[in-house]
């Protein structure tokens, strides 16, 4: 028999997120700018303009990251991508003597085929996405969770049947009921744990990288080293 025990410490019942107007407007603006600039980037004849359009796109991506509450990633994005990679691109443009001004002419059949492939890809992915994630919503801020926690409870506050099921005397004072015992006796002790805050999960990311994903971290480090050496080897003067 399950006893739902609602303790006084449990807070208000859960609520669903409502339609958050500011975030949606922000998203719409960022998305529109990004799409426009991306399109311009792949169609413009001017190489430098393309690079600059890319900058805007990358910035938009960073904005989205921050919108999603991953400020660390967003910061990393700006630092690495815009700060380093775009610079690299510009160096590359310079070193390959790209003509300033209009440079590119794209062949018609390439364009057609590329467009076709891209459209096809878009259709397939769109179909899959819409079909798969139709109504899934991102909740900003983690919702309150209900968890079983080993908790200290005053024995006198337990209802009599629960207390007798747990085999606790009435006058034992504060008792800690472990999760295992709760599960074993199939009684529920709930506590609302407040959800995580929207911002400030850097700590968790850091914890994650340096404990659980330490190996990929080290691998990426080695990869960067290899790339560094490789680039030097490839590009050095004979």
């Amino acid at each position: 028999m399950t006893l739902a025990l609602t303790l006084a410490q449990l807070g208000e019942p859960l609520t669903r997120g409502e339609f958050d107007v500011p975030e949606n407007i922000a998203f719409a603006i960022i998305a529109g700018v990004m799409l426009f600039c991306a399109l311009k980037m792949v169609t413009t004849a001017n190489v430098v303009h393309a690079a600059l359009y890319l900058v805007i796109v990358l910035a938009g991506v960073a904005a989205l990251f921050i919108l999603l509450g991953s400020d660390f990633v967003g910061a990393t994005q700006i630092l690495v991508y815009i700060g380093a990679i775009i610079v690299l691109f510009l160096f590359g443009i310079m070193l390959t003597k790209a003509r300033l001004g209009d440079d590119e002419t794209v062949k018609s059949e390439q364009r057609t085929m590329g467009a076709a492939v891209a459209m096809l890809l878009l259709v397939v992915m769109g179909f899959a996405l819409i079909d798969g994630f139709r109504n899934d919503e991102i909740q900003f801020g983690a919702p309150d969770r209900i968890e079983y926690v080993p908790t200290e409870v005053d024995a006198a506050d337990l209802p009599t049947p629960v207390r007798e099921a747990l085999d606790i005397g009435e006058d034992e004072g504060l008792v800690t009921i472990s999760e295992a015992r709760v599960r074993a006796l199939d009684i529920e002790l709930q506590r609302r744990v407040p959800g995580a805050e929207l911002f400030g999960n850097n700590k968790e990311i850091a914890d994650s990288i340096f404990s659980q994903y330490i190996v990929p971290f080290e691998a990426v480090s080695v990869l960067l080293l290899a790339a560094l050496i490789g680039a030097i080897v490839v590009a050095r003067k004979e």
Partner: protein
Amino acid sequence: MLSLLAVEAYDVSFTNDANWFLENVWIIPLLPALSFVGILFFGKRMPYKGAELGIAAVGLAFILAVLTNVAWMSHRDNYDGEAQRAVAVHHDDHADDHAEDDHSDENAAVLNVDGVDEAVVLTAAEEGGEESHPAVAVLKGREWLVNGGVSFLIGTIADGPSVLMLFVVTAISLLVHIYSTDYVANDRRYTHYFAFLSLFSASMLFFVISRSTIQLITAWELVGVCSFALIGHWWEEKPNSDAALKAFLTNRVGDIGLLVGMIILFFSAGGTFDITTINEMAVNGEISDTALMWAAIALTAAVMSKSGQFILHTWLPDAMAGPTPVSALIHAATMVVAGVFMIARLYPVFYEGYDIAGSSINGLALIGAVTVVFGGLLAFVQDDIKKVLAYSTVSQLGYMVLALGVGAWTAALFHLFTHAFFKAGLFLGSGSVAHSVHSFDMKKDMGGMRKFMPTTFKTFIICSIALAGVFPTAGFWSKDEILVGTGGLGVGAEKANGNYNLMLIMGLVGAALTGAYMTRAIYLTFFGEFRGHGEPHESGKRITVPLIILSVFAAFAGFLNLPPGFLAGSASEPTGWQERFGHFFEPAAAYFPPIGHAVPSWGLAIVASIVGLLGPAVAYWYYFIKVDNLAKETGQSLTELPDGLTTRNSLANAGHQLLVNKYYLDHLYNDVIVASVKGPIAKAAYWFNQHVIDEVVDTAGRTSVKAGNFVYNNIDQKVVDGAVNASGYISNQSGQELRRMQTGKVQQYAALLFAGATILAGVLIVLI
């Protein structure tokens, strides 16, 4: 004390286990067969050109045959082992000889190699008394092949007729072999001749010990082949090869009857080829009368051709074209009696099929009787001495068939036995004469030979007397037994199988004729003046010694079957030295029908002797007195009276012409039957073949050629080749097209990659 006169039904037929000679009687035909092969392969290189091998083989076979006969004689009365029947007997319908087809265990007789299980242990006959001890045949055999549920046995049967014939065949063959070394010396195909003599001996010996009808048919055909080969020995002359063909083809006509008869017997006996089984079933009445009748009629056709009975006898005189020893062996003593022997072997079939018991006429006896008279008549008009003897053989064969037809089984075989010796003696004697004058024509080249060839003359006379049936030579006893056996006109004291009046009369007439034509032949050959040229002289030892041996047999062989009541004993109580031949050689077992045995009478013997001497008397009067006197008067050597009966009387002349033309039978066969087939029927068949059958075939051919062309041009060239070419073209072109994809442009490759991946992903998403 009943022996032959006992009409008991015996309960056993055969055994598998007896004296060594009787069990291994297969060795006897094997020896000449091996010598045949040996002579074929090695004969030309041997010092005597193969003759020594043949003589050795036949000599050894003769010795074995004699020993086998001795073994048989001791076995016949003294066998005390187990004996069996081949077919179980129903006791409830044993009394009914004509039971119809409701025998539930006819199949018990099928595949019965070892007989039914109830074996009886016999006791030996007591000394001096032959207490109706059955003559147990010794059967050996093995299953040769099984096909479709039918078992084909190959084996031997050693019983009375077998061992008798073994003796006769090997004896005559040995004498003929020795005779031939002189007669055909320096012949163009000496070795080949001896090879075929060996093969014939082997085949005939195989024939007489055949256990199953299949073996019998095989041996029958084999002896026919040997006859063909030996008649046509000098085939370079066309008449000889014609005669050989005539012999073979006439035999073929009869062989249809043989096959039909054996087939009827096979099916009506429930699917067995075993002769003992078929005989027992016929005796018990387990084969229906109709089947037996038709089988007997069909087999009679075979006998008519092989044993020279009237209508199909025409080949026998022509067969005299072969060498004389061959005629002696094959066409007098052994092969022509194959038909008679077959009747003797399958006697229950004939006895029941022709309903011999209790009749006064039946088909078989009639055929025999007609042959006796008609063959004898033809012997009168022959100039060739061998042809006289050939017709005489036809006539004597008629006697044997007559005897079998009236139920006198022992008489027939006894006559076969004696006839073999004296006829062979006559033939070899004629050969001896011809050898010295180099011709067979009595009228032209012989005459007065007794002065030049005394030994031949004496043996010839003795054998002729035996043939004519004069007391006490062999022919008298055997012919008399036949006449008594007919039971006609009251002879035989009611113990014969029927009362065949007509047969008796015709037999008597035949006896008269026999003596008459032999007298004529003797006069023309040995008396009168020599009409030939050259200096004839007596033949060598190798010719005369066999003649002497044969004439001894001709004189004394008759004493082997003295009738009961002769000098001692009586019909109901024969003594131990009477009827020896019949006692030992007539089967007395469950597979032989209980036939009646006529009581011999002196009355008939005297009458027959008188009649038999009447003929020679007339001939003697005609030739020895009238012709001879006329010859002496005119000083010529005459062969006939110039103003004889035939020249004066037109009816007599017509009869003479009829005889000279052999009753126009040859004309009937050749010019009417054969010509009509050769002529219109053959032409019609040819037209049909050319215009109808060939048309169909040609049309089929033309159609397929056209179809083939069509298929080639349209289907093969256009469709099939087109498909093949097209596939090649497609491969080439598609390759060319696809090659354009390989532009080397990275982005294009990338585009294709992406496109492909997308499509796959789409498929996965949609389907899964």
